[in-house]
């Protein structure tokens, strides 16, 4: 009895504390759901409630089963991976197809590229997106340009690089980065970011099977905290197609990955407190991105907010803003707002200040409407 009340007290204190300081609240049942059409018509036996890493695990198993040339490799993947995305795969498919590499990102990427050009579906893992930079040369100079410079004789379409990215609340400089902009600046690559477990499995399978090299960035914050029903079978969600998570009429809000959940809260609060109806868009594929879905929405609402964790300068928000003002200039009622990380290295103790949290986004929505 005493213990129970103590727990209740602790939880309510925590909640108040978090709300006061605007820390993102991630409940176990997230505000937003993945694409419903993917589960429509499936009965209970074909679905399972999964979190993000389980969904990715399921997607990888489907990929290995359906493609005998597919193999998964990276640091520590054999025992299951530091985020458990590869649990049980070695037992199921054997050590020749799921294996550990030494610690050498540049070598891993180069090896993966060579394998992909010679008929093996290479699913390489970079343990954290923060460590992808030694491999940057291989990815940008070799993978992205193989098809172009060989006049379509060779390509590394069979290459997929999976990497966890994004803030976790305590990651600091080198376990929280969002390097999507560097790769979105490279023609020849595709950059894909899922926002829910259902989305993750479908987008992962589409990325692996896409005949172009894909950098697939998994929001590590959501590995455990995002939970929903996911089909057990094989399905894909198309690349370069965004989705409207929630329709609205006053402001278009664009995001991806974990940030989408923050935006969902902000959008909900905006509706409750300010009666502002926001249209929330999940881009899913960051490059090449679905321009039309954003343009259509902005032509309707006249206002746009883009939000991402990565630093604001030269982040993807800049590209989206530039394109929208090129195509929808006369429809805009207010300047396009970007609610992003500051231009600092991802801080450790100052993460709460740095982060583009729910309150900052709510404020942006208000300001946009009041312009």
């Amino acid at each position, binding site marked *: 009895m005493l213990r129970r009340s103590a727990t209740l007290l602790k939880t309510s204190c925590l909640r108040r504390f978090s709300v006061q300081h605007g820390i993102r609240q991630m409940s176990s049942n997230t505000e937003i759901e993945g694409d419903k059409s993917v589960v429509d018509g499936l009965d209970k036996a074909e679905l399972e409630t999964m979190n993000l890493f389980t969904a990715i695990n399921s997607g990888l198993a489907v990929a290995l089963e359906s493609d005998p*040339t597919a193999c998964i490799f990276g640091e520590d993947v054999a025992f299951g991976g530091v985020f458990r995305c590869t649990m049980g795969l070695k037992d199921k498919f054997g050590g020749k197809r799921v294996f550990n590499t030494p610690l050498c990102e*540049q*070598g891993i990427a180069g090896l993966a590229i060579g*394998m992909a050009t010679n008929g*093996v579906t290479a699913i390489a893992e970079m343990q954290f997106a923060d460590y992808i930079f030694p491999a940057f040369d291989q990815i940008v100079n070799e993978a992205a340009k193989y*098809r172009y410079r060989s*006049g379509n004789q060779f390509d590394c379409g069979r290459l997929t690089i999976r990497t966890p990215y994004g803030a976790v609340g305590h990651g600091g400089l080198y376990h929280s980065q969002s390097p999507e902009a560097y790769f979105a600046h490279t023609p020849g690559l595709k950059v894909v970011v899922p926002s829910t477990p259902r989305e993750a499995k479908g987008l992962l399978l589409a990325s692996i099977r896409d005949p172009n090299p894909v950098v697939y960035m998994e929001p590590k914050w959501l590995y455990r905290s995002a939970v929903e029903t996911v089909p057990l079978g094989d399905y894909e969600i198309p690349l370069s197609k965004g989705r409207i998570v929630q329709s609205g009429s006053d402001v278009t809000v664009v995001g991806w990955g974990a940030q989408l959940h923050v935006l969902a809260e902000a959008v909900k609060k905006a509706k409750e407190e300010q009666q502002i109806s926001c249209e929330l868009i999940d881009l899913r594929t960051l490059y090449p991105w679905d321009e039309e879905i954003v343009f259509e929405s902005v032509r309707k609402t006249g206002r746009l907010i883009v939000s991402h964790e990565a630093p604001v300068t030269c982040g993807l928000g800049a590209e989206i803003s530039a394109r929208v003002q090129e195509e929808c200039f006369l429809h805009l009622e207010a300047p396009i707002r970007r609610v992003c990380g500051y231009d600092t290295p991802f801080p450790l103790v100052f993460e709460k200040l740095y982060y583009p949290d729910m309150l900052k986004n709510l404020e942006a929505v208000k300001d946009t409407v009041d312009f």
Partner: protein
Amino acid sequence: APVGLWPHLFTMFSTLRLASGALSSPARCVLRSAVAAQCTSLRSFAKKAKSEDNGEIIIPLDSAHLTHRCDGPTSKDIPTSQEEMLKFYETMYAVRRLEVASDTLYKQRLIRGFLHLYNGQEAVAVGMLAAMKETDAVITAYRDHAFSLLRGGTYYTILSELMGKAPGVSKGKGGSMHLFGVDHHFYGGNAIVGAQVPVGAGISFAQKYEGTGGVTMVAYGDGAANQGQIFETFNMAYIWKLPCIFVIENNGYGMGTSISRAASNTDFFLRGDFVPGMKVDGMDVFGVKHAMEYACDFARNQGPIVLEMMTYRYVGHSMSDPGTTYRTREEVDNVRKKQDPIERLKDRILKGNLATADEIKAIEKTVKKDVDDALRKAKAAPWPDMEELYHDIYEETVPVRHVERANNFYPPQ
């Protein structure tokens, strides 16, 4: 002022010659067949191959290979034939003429950008590829014209590619540094120094994974040999026993820096550490072939191996480099006079009475004519369609922003 570094070749040769007790004069061919010994200079060399004897010629290895953690080939005798020797001559001469033609085109400003020539190193490419199977994979750096010629390229398609013309090997989109040959397992042609090494290991990984029995030859230079990713690759290749042959074309200089200034250990064949290695005289096409045969067998059955080919380039690193600011003209001339692979082979052929000087001249004339014809044809070849600018970025055609502003682009006339 650059240190007058006498090429590493000579140091190695004198050491090896002392060690192996070889004669200082060029090795003499030993003709097995008595009939062959009586062949006159007037007999056509093409008919010779059909004579009664087996036509086999044994060449003793000129300079012994230095080995590291492996035994090296057991036999010091290299079997060959008149046909093969003349083929080698023709091919090496063709590579040389191709490079000379490229040089001319560059000076006429019909080739722009960067051009890296292979003059002096012909024996390495020709010898190595002669020892490999057609289905083995080849990947190299940017000094790749010879490799392309041996794997799917023709004078016409290579020269077109250098000029950016549509019939080029890579549709005009790669240029000198990106010649590829998908039907001949030739993975290029790579500009980024050292980047092709882990990629090559990946290709050999796929060969092992799919059980094709093939090997991959991964070539890079002495400058690239200090790149970190190469050691990452050695490590992975060794633990997984990949069928990969790492070949260092050591021409003594990484761009303008001599190996003694760039490498703490200039014995590159030792740098694989636990990966076995061999050091080979890269100016002797038969020595190269001999070593490569051993290496192919080793890689197919045991695991990775490193070959260091001691060679030399007469030209600069690229067309922008005169090649004289970091070495003396004397040094270049000396190598050209004493070690030139084409002259060495010509010597062997003439001394062994396998062809007359006239027959050799005839081969050279044919090659020259073919290259000149191809050159003329390539100069007149069409430019690629402008749409090629934005094709092959992805498999599918995607909208490319602002491409309408590229419509006023005209290739240089």
